[in-house]
């Protein structure tokens, strides 16, 4: 039996190796043909002209993720403080399942609501020819990372020893001062982990953004149609010929995205580990 269970355990390791090896093998050829520099820093992605530069995609992913973090993290953080410290138990017990429901809603549903509410609204408000834009994608992403930011920060805030807060209150600090100047700094590595997890979520999301971002490989600008690394793959995957340079270039984008997420994961593990050791 032990052998069987060992094999099950090894399956996870095997899958990771399989994914890495296959991505590297299928991602390298296009990079070789296009040239690493031209691939990473080329400013034009146009399959019809056989030009495959993913710099706009990389920048869009970076800007989009940063935007989502800038909007989503403060809202998530304050909601977490509210849940962990301010809200009466009964209220918190209603909000918590609501937050996990938010986490469970499929990404296409977010995309759909974004398409039907957000995109037309942005077009009206900002007087744009079309509302599909980086801004729409940022807002959708901010909503989508909210649940993970909230639940991870809340867990971290709950874990702050009661004595810290009691000491601060006994010294005459107000409750708010205590939450922001004692509890939050004490929970900072947990909150950092929440931010990193949010980054991971945002950079990996594809379907919801594909429905609101317009998907033209422009250099990123808030009100313009843009293409992310993820949507760069998804928009052409079904139309590219098997074995063509275009298909291979998609695999190369996959490899770049994979490296990005591995980096973020490694960072997340590091932060979480430090949290555990404390």
């Amino acid at each position, binding site marked *: 039996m*032990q052998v*069987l*269970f*060992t094999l*099950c*355990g*090894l*399956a*996870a*390791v095997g*899958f*990771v190796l399989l*994914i890495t090896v*296959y*991505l590297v093998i299928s991602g390298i050829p296009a990079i070789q043909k296009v040239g690493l520099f031209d691939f990473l820093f080329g400013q034009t992605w146009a399959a019809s002209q056989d030009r495959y530069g993913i710099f706009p995609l990389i920048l869009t992913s970076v800007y989009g993720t940063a935007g989502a973090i800038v909007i989503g993290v403060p*809202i998530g953080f*304050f909601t977490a403080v*509210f*849940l962990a410290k*301010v809200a009466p138990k009964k209220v918190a017990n209603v*909000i918590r*399942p*609501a*937050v*996990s*429901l*938010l986490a469970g*809603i*499929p990404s*296409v*549903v977010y*995309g*759909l*609501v974004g*398409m039907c509410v957000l995109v037309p609204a942005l077009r009206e408000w900002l007087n744009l020819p079309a509302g599909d834009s980086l801004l729409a994608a940022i807002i959708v992403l901010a*909503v989508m990372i*909210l649940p993970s930011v*909230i639940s991870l920060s809340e867990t971290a805030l709950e874990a702050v020893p009661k004595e810290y807060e009691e000491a601060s209150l006994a010294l005459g600090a*107000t409750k*708010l001062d205590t939450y*922001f100047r004692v509890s939050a700094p004490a929970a900072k590595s947990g909150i950092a982990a929440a931010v990193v997890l949010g980054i*991971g979520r945002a*950079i*990996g999301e594809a*379907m919801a953004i*594909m*429905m609101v971002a317009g998907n033209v490989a422009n250099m990123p600008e808030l009100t313009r149609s843009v293409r992310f690394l*993820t949507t760069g*793959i*998804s928009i052409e*995957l*079904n139309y590219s010929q098997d074995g063509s340079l275009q298909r291979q270039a998609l*695999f190369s984008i*996959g490899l770049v995205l*994979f490296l990005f*997420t*591995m980096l973020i*994961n490694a960072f*997340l*593990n590091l932060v979480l580990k430090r949290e555990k050791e404390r």
Partner: protein
Amino acid sequence: MRRKVYEIIGRVLLYGCAAITIGLLLFLIAYILFRGVGGISWQFLSTSESVINGTIGILPAIENTLFVILVSLVIALPLGVGAAIYLTEYAKNKRFVAVIEFASETLAGIPSIIYALVGVIIFCTALKLQKTLLSGSLTLVIMILPTIIRSTQESLKTVPQSYREGALGLGSGKWHMIRTVVLPSSIEGIVTGCILAVGRVVGESAVLMYTAGMSMAMQSFSIDSITGASGATLTVALYHYAKENADFQVAFSIATILLILTVLINFAAAFLGKKLKRS
């Protein structure tokens, strides 16, 4: 004075942000139901799309979703539970445990579009399974494996050491002890893991769109055609109707169904999780 302003701003931020979060959820639910409920009828749920009658039905998508859930769980469950048993009961080498846990965390962090690529490369192309529900299910196995490993492992850890010692002391073998004592007392955690995994499968769209196809035609899940069956699940059908047909009525009706499923899955997981905590 400054203190007072600070205090007020702080409170406004706290209550305001919590209100935004809740408001968002309520808005989402209300809007989806408002636009979607009207389109749901027995005919919508129980037939397939018919051009002749001009009616739309999503039975194939429901069947495809169930098929994908079933196949991916049947494979991932034994694999994941087995891995968790190995990690908590058998493994002695800490380094080795760390490697497996790291691998499982890595799998959990990979974005689904990468799984889609991997599914296309490995299952559809290299293993020549083509774009089928089977390819999709197999890709999802890798994706949900970490979920099952983690929740099984957590519930195995809550089984008191004395149970194990008691069983071993009575002369039971290790596997017998695991089968009759450890697993039955951690069944709730395993079921919770399955529910969470089902939630991921139901909500997944990117992987299935590229590995399982987008057809809305009726399947005949007969034994010899089962490996060749290909089609859209609920989420992919939603995308198909919204983005390619611009038929938002149908898309919102599917969204309503997905929303109801999500609520059910969340409640089931929370209920079991609570039960687990109490025991």
